[in-house]
C-alpha cells in the first residue's frame, strides 16, 4: 500500500465539494492516460469579478486522485480565474503534504482539469501540452515520454547522457536497465545501435578528477566548476543552485527557483554531493545554506 500522508487520507475519506456544481458555468474534463483515472471539475464563476464561487469534482480514480480533486476545489474557491490559472500541480501536492512519486500525476490531472475549466469558461478549447508515459525514474519522477523526447532532441547515446539531461537515473540507479531499453528503442528507430560503452554525447561535466590534496581555494573553484556543469539540468526544471560557503569539507548551497521548496530538493542535493565526490576524489558534504546558522551558533557557543 502507498505511504499516503494524513492529509491525503483526510481528503479521501471525507472529500470536500464532491459532486457537480448546480448551474455551473465552467467545466473541465480530463483523464490521465498513465493510470486511467479521470476527473470532471465544475465551477460557478461570478461573471463580473471572475471569482470562483463554487467548485465541485467528480472523480473516477484512486485514493490520491480523489484527494487531489478534493484539495484542488478547496484551493481555488474564492480565487479569481487569473489567480486560479497560476495554481500548479506542486501547489496541489504541497497542500496534501506530498504524494508518492508514482502518484504525482494525480496532482497533474487536477491542474489540467482546472486549466480546462478556465478555458471552457472563456470559450476556448484547452489543449494539453504534454504527454505522459510510464514512470521510469522514481527518484525524480521522470517518465518514458520525457526521456524519449530528450534522447531524440539531444541525440543522447548513453545512460549518463540521459541522467545529465533529465536527471533520470541520477538517484538510486535502479532504472538504468529501463533507460537502456529506451535508448535501444530510440536509437534503433534512428537506425543506430545502442552501445553501452559509448562516450557521452557531450561532456559538460568532464572535469578531470583530482589526484592531490586540494587547498581551500582550489576546492572552492573546483566545486564551482562542478555546479556550473550541473546547472543546465537544474535550469531545465526552472531551478538553480548557488554556492554560499565552503567550510572544510562541507559545501553550503542555496537551491533557488523551482528547486526551492521542491520535494525533490533533498534528492537533488544528494545527487550534487555524489557528483562532487566523484570529481574531487574526497569526501564532500553538501548542506542547504539554511543549516549554516546552526553551525555558527554552535561554534560561538
Amino acid at each position, binding site marked *: 500500500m502507498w505511504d499516503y500522508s494524513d492529509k491525503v487520507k483526510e481528503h479521501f475519506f471525507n472529500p470536500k465539494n464532491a459532486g457537480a456544481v448546480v448551474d455551473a458555468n465552467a467545466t473541465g474534463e480530463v483523464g490521465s492516460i498513465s493510470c486511467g483515472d*479521470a476527473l470532471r471539475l465544475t465551477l460557478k464563476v461570478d461573471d463580473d469579478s471572475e471569482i470562483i464561487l463554487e467548485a465541485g469534482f467528480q472523480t473516477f480514480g484512486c485514493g490520491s486522485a480523489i484527494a487531489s480533486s478534493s484539495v484542488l476545489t478547496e484551493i481555488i474557491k474564492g480565487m479569481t480565474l487569473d489567480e486560479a490559472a497560476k495554481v500548479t500541480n506542486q501547489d496541489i501536492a504541497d497542500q496534501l503534504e506530498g504524494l508518492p512519486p508514482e502518484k504525482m500525476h494525480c496532482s497533474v490531472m487536477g491542474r489540467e482539469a482546472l486549466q480546462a475549466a478556465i478555458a471552457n469558461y472563456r470559450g476556448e478549447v484547452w489543449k494539453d501540452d504534454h504527454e505522459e508515459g510510464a514512470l521510469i525514474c522514481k527518484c525524480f519522477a521522470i517518465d518514458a515520454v520525457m526521456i524519449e523526447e530528450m534522447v531524440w532532441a539531444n541525440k543522447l547515446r548513453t545512460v549518463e547522457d540521459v541522467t545529465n539531461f533529465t536527471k533520470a537515473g541520477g538517484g538510486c540507479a535502479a532504472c538504468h536497465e529501463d533507460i537502456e531499453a529506451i535508448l535501444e528503442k530510440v536509437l534503433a528507430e534512428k537506425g543506430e545501435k545502442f552501445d553501452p560503452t559509448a562516450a557521452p554525447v557531450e561532456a559538460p561535466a568532464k572535469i578531470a578528477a583530482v589526484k592531490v590534496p586540494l587547498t581551500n581555494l582550489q576546492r572552492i573553484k573546483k566545486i564551482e566548476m562542478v555546479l556550473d556543469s550541473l546547472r543546465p539540468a537544474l535550469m531545465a526544471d526552472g531551478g538553480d543552485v548557488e554556492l554560499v560557503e565552503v567550510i572544510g569539507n562541507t559545501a553550503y548551497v542555496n537551491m533557488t527557483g523551482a528547486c526551492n521548496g521542491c520535494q525533490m530538493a533533498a534528492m537533488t542535493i544528494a545527487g550534487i554531493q555524489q557528483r562532487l565526490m566523484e570529481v574531487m576524489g574526497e569526501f564532500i558534504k553538501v548542506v542547504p545554506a539554511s543549516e549554516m546558522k546552526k553551525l555558527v551558533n554552535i561554534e560561538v557557543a
Partner: protein
Amino acid sequence: MKDIYLDNNATTKVDHAVVDVMIPYFLEQYGNPSSIHKFADGVAKGLKHARQQVQALIGCEHDSEIIFTSCGTESNSTAILSAIKAQPNKKEIITTTVEHPAILSVCDMLEKEGYTIHRMPVDKAGRLNLAAYQKLLSDQVALVTVMWANNETGTIFPVAEMADMANAAGVMFHTDAVQAVGKIPMMLQDTKIDMLSISGHKLHAPKGIGVLYLRRGTRYRPLLRGGHQERGRRAGTENSASIVGLGKACELALEYIEYENTIVKAMRDRLEKGLTEQIPHCFVTGDMYNRLPNTTDIAFEYIEGESILMLLNKAGIAASSGSACTSGSLEPSHVMRAMDIPYTAAHGTIRFSFSRYNSMSEVDEVLKVMPDIVAKLRKLSPYWEGDAPVADPEKAFAPTYA
C-alpha cells in the same frame, strides 16, 4: 470485530503447527545438513520427511523429483531457462497472455534474445483455445509453460490435457501451479507434466521457500551451480527450517483439501452471491464454472479499485485489486485486459481470496459494508448519477486524455 484477511492468493498466514515444527531447526538442529555431527544429524531426516510430505500432496512418483528452491519465482525461472539450455536448437516457447510476471518477464527477456514467444490469448471468460494450441506445437518448441490456476480470477487451465498434447508432440511441459497446489487435488504421476512450480507462502508455509517438481528423466540444467545440495540440481545450503515447515504445510493442505473444496468454497460462493445480488452493475470475472474454490474476482463498474481497497481497509477488511493504481503501473491488470473487460470495469476489480482460517461470519461482515463502500465511491464518479450509471457513460463523460 477482528480484522478480516481475504487476500490469501497474495500470501497466507503461516500455520501455527508449521511454526512449531520449524523452531527446533533454528535453535537445536541448526547444523549444516552436510555436516557430520549431532547439530546436523536430524536435519537430513527432516528434509527427507518434508520431501515425502510434498510428494504426497502433489502425487508424484519419486521423492527425488522434488527440488527445494527459494520461491515460486525461482522455480519458474529455473524451469524456463533449463528447458532452453537443455535444448539449444529449439527457439520457440508457448505460454499464455495471463501468466504471472514471473513467467512473462522471463519470456520477454528471451524474446529480446531472439526466441519466438507464442502468448496464447484467452476468451472473455479467461479460457484457452486448445485447437489453436495444438497448431502451435512443433519440434521447434522448447517448452510450453502454462499456469495451472490464475492468481487473479482463479480460472483453472486444463494442464493435464495440455501436457498430454505437448508430450505427444515431443514438447516439454511446465506449469506454474503456485495458486493450485493445496487448493485442488492433483496426482502428477498420472500426468505428462514435466515440471511444476510451488510457492510455500501460498499454502501457509513461510515466505522464501518453493519447490520445482522435475519429472524423473526430464532433461535439466541447474540455474544455481555450486555445492551438491538437491543432488546438484539447486546448489546453496538448504533452508532447512523452511523446508521442514513447507513439508508440514503440505501435510496439512492434503488433510484440508476437502474442507477447502466444500466449506471454504461455500464461503466464497456466499460472498459472491451476496455481493452480486446486493450491488448493481458488478460482475464476476473469469470462468465461473472452472475456478479455484477460494477465489472470486468481482468487477465493480464505474469506480476504481484502490479507492475500494482503502475504504475496505478502513473497515478492517483486506483484499486486492487489478487496478493500475495499486501497482503503480500504466495499465489495469494484464489478465483483465486479456479477457477484454471494459476499462471502466477493469479498474474496479476486487479479488477476495479465502483460506481455511476464514469464517462465515466474516463473509457476513463484508456483505454488510461493501454495498455502502461502492455507493459512496459511485457518488463521486463522473460515470454515475443518482442510483444508476449515466446514460451512455462513455459518451456522457469523455475526458481529454493526457
